[in-house]
């Protein structure tokens, strides 16, 4: 998980600005504005019916039966009974709008209220409510609406109410799951510890999160209710005194061979109404999902360590004093390369395109070597570009990344010109990779063994590959290799998963191993064992290792040489003892001095509280 998300990289530093309301952002989208305008126009047509209609919608004059559009006083023509299609359309708009309001309103109120109760209170209440709504979901809704048709007196309002009840389970599930999710957020815990009452937590922290999805659902529910009302009327349910797009369609359908134009009007209005509702819902969803959305849940899920924080330098007291992008790189970057240089990197750059078509470099001219049998540590803080450097050597950066270098040689072969294809050939056999989060790096749907075997099958038979992997699982210290081989990832511990991934990495007998924070996600006792394993395997296979880490203890344990990175630049490199004892660059000095000294323990005595005033 350590790659800097390109989307995040692509975000320019935000100036301090107030969050503009979601509604205002909706208005900045062409689709959002058009949908809203269309919806408002249709509703306005319906509201202005008394002014705009010439006839009563049910007034029939057989002289005008099937009158053509454009007939004076019958602007859209007459239907087969000689009723004014224009007047009927306007009246039908009102019926549709009321249907949408009743259907969506019923579903929303029931679903939201019970969803909030169920999600927030949980336990038995949740059990009973969830069971009830799941039951409701299994009812054949339309059949029941029709079954209840005589009970309800056949008014479309009551049919829509019943239909709304059947819409409620969807909203209930949505709200309940959102609330359950929010309830486990740390900031809700913090609010509780801050002494907020349950109603306040609900209104402040929970309602905010569910507001957006509910508004979106409202649009979709309303469109469903409008569609179903029209469908029911098309089937002939409901009073024939109530003009509806459904009954209009039904009337016109009879004339489909002789007067197809009559079908155009109800279809047009119905499509406009439903279409504008749906597009409005879609546009609002896009607004909420946009990166500047206040509830950017996606950014919260990212690993904190690698956040590219967007803050102007004035406020950035935590970070290093002054950026020295042009600082001279100390301790020559191109030391006399050992003859057996395994990895040779010269002036490596990794850039990501920005929204304004410029490029932003996350790795900015990095040069180093890794010799055969050597362990090189690549250290730096979040956003330093260390992981991007590692991934570019593996050829595993996302497609948007632009990579360039004067030289990128692996085992004597310069691969920079066609690095994506060339590196693909080298991966698995010449270079291998050990990731940070063992669990996330195993496919949860396949057994550990089957996915490790997969990488070997291009080189040997499945049987040989299985034997090789089993042997290696034993070699990396897994007590029962066969059992782990047949286990799914969730059935083994993080330490075991990391051992399995190491086995998979070394299975192709690579010459160069790239390990990205291989022990960061592990407990300290497991970390020690994994470090031992890496050291043993490295000397056994004579591999060169590039170890990306932020932990100086890990560096001290394993590495021969160290590269210190900051802001995409290697600021210092050298033998591990030199770097620890005699750091040259001020950034390295600062990092080393930030390491908490092991010899001093806190000695000052507790200060008793001053009397509270």
């Amino acid at each position, binding site marked *: 998980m350590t790659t800097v998300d390109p989307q995040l990289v692509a975000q320019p530093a935000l100036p*301090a600005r*107030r969050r503009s309301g979601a509604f205002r952002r909706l208005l900045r989208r062409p689709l959002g504005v058009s949908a809203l305008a269309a919806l408002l126009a249709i509703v306005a047509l319906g509201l202005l019916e008394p002014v705009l209609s010439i006839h009563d919608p049910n007034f029939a004059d057989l002289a005008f039966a099937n009158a053509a559009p454009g007939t004076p006083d019958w602007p859209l023509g007459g239907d087969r009974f000689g009723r004014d299609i224009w007047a009927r359309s306007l009246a039908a708009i009102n019926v549709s709008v009321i249907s949408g309001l009743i259907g969506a309103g019923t579903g929303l109120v029931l679903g939201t209220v019970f969803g909030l109760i169920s999600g927030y209170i949980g336990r038995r209440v949740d059990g009973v409510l969830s069971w009830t709504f799941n039951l409701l979901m299994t009812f054949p809704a339309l059949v029941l609406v029709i079954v209840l048709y005589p009970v309800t007196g056949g008014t479309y309002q009551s049919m829509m109410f019943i239909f709304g009840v059947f819409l409620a389970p969807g909203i209930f599930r949505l709200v309940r799951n959102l609330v359950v999710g929010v309830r486990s*957020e*740390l*900031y809700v*815990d*913090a*609010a*509780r*510890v801050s*002494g907020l*009452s*349950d109603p*306040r937590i609900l209104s*402040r922290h929970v309602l*905010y*999160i569910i507001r957006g999805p509910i508004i979106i659902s409202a649009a979709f529910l309303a469109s469903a209710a409008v569609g179903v009302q029209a469908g029911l009327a098309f089937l002939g349910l409901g009073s024939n005194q109530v003009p509806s797009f459904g009954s209009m369609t039904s009337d016109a359908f009879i004339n489909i061979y002789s007067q197809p134009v009559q079908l155009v009007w109800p279809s047009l209005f119905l499509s406009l109404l439903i279409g504008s509702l749906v597009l409005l819902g879609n546009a609002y969803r896009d607004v909420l999902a946009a990166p500047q959305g*206040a*509830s950017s849940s996606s950014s*919260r899920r*990212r690993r*904190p*360590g690698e*956040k590219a*924080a*967007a*803050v102007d330098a004035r*406020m950035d*007291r*935590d*970070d290093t004093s002054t950026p020295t992008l042009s600082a001279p790189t100390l301790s020559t970057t191109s030391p006399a390369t050992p003859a057996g240089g395994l990895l040779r990197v010269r002036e490596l750059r990794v850039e990501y395109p920005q929204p304004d078509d410029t490029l932003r470099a996350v790795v900015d001219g990095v040069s180093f070597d890794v010799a055969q049998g050597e362990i090189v540590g690549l250290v730096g*803080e*979040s956003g330093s570009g260390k992981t991007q450097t590692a991934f570019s050597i593996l050829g595993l950066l996302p497609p948007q990344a632009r990579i360039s270098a004067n030289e990128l040689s692996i085992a004597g072969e310069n691969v920079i010109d066609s690095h994506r294809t060339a590196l693909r050939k080298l991966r698995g056999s010449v270079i291998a990779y050990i990731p940070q989060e063992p669990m996330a790096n195993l496919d949860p749907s396949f057994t550990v063994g089957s996915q490790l075997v997969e990488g070997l099958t291009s080189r040997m038979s499945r049987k040989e590959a299985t034997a090789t992997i089993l042997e290696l699982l034993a070699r990396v210290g897994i007590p029962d290799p066969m059992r782990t081989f047949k286990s799914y990832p969730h059935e083994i511990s993080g330490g075991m998963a990391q051992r399995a991934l190491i086995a998979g990495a070394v299975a192709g007998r690579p010459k160069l191993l790239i390990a990205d924070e291989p022990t960061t996600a592990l*407990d*300290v*006792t497991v970390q*020690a064992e994994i470090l*031992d394993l890496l050291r043993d395997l490295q000397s056994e296979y004579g591999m060169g290792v590039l170890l990306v880490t*932020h*932990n*100086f*203890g890990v560096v*001290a344990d394993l590495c021969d040489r160290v590269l210190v990175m900051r802001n995409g630049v290697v600021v210092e490199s050298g033998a*591990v*003892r030199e770097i*620890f004892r005699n750091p040259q660059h001020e950034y390295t000095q*600062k990092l080393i001095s930030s*390491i*908490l*000294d*092991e010899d001093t*323990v*806190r*000695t*000052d005595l*507790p*200060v*008793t*509280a001053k009397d*509270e005033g």
Partner: protein
Amino acid sequence: MSDLLTIEDLHLRYPARGLRHGPEILKGVSLSIAPGETLGLVGESGSGKTTLGRAVLGLASPTSGNITYKGENITHASKKRRRALAREMQVVFQDPYTSLNPALQISDILAEPLVAQGMKAAEARQRVGGLLDRVGLPANAAERYPREFSGGQRQRVAIARAVALQPRLIVCDEPVSALDLSTQAVVLDLLIDLQRSAGVSYLFITHDLSVVRHVSHRVAVMYRGELVETGPVADVTNTPSHDYTRKLLLAAPTADPDRQRERRQARRALQTAQ
């Protein structure tokens, strides 16, 4: 000096699923914290250290045992009492990305506990500037949103929220684990400064022994739901009495190649001896 918080024989078992018993997370934990003191609680993932902190805060419900605060048994305090206890104990969580509501401005986040205790909203907002200053953030941070801050800055906001009500006890659950090395040291120093000036006590939960050495007066080592060792920080980290503590100390790599080599050999010797 009487203790601020005492925990006696605390057990906590997760609710049963079906017929099976839920796993027991805490198996009889006892400890105490004096006023103005930092008790470091060290353990690996799954040891129960976070659950213990949540039980103190009323976010997890113990199955048996007692939590006593200033002589009052708060093990199963009522919701109303818990809301009042917000003036006494507060929290700083590990992940500064999920512990601040992304939808609220910093000023709203900081005013929230004050308003919850009955302060007028306008008055609470006036106090925000002072709080930001105490944690070393500029006053213009008030009108910003959490996403505009780096991890270290967010953690400062979380600390400001915790000290807003001038509590006597703050549960710090891995407050620096998600931060970069250089930020870590600065935030730890901030916590120590606040403690010295206000005399607040910390229950400081962490997996990192070097952090514990830095901030704790006393240390408790937790392993599989039990405390295996408790004592002054120098004693526990220099002359550990329990095997697990020893193992933990030897497993943590030190940032010195030569000393780390010695430590590694000592760890392997301990391993073969066992």
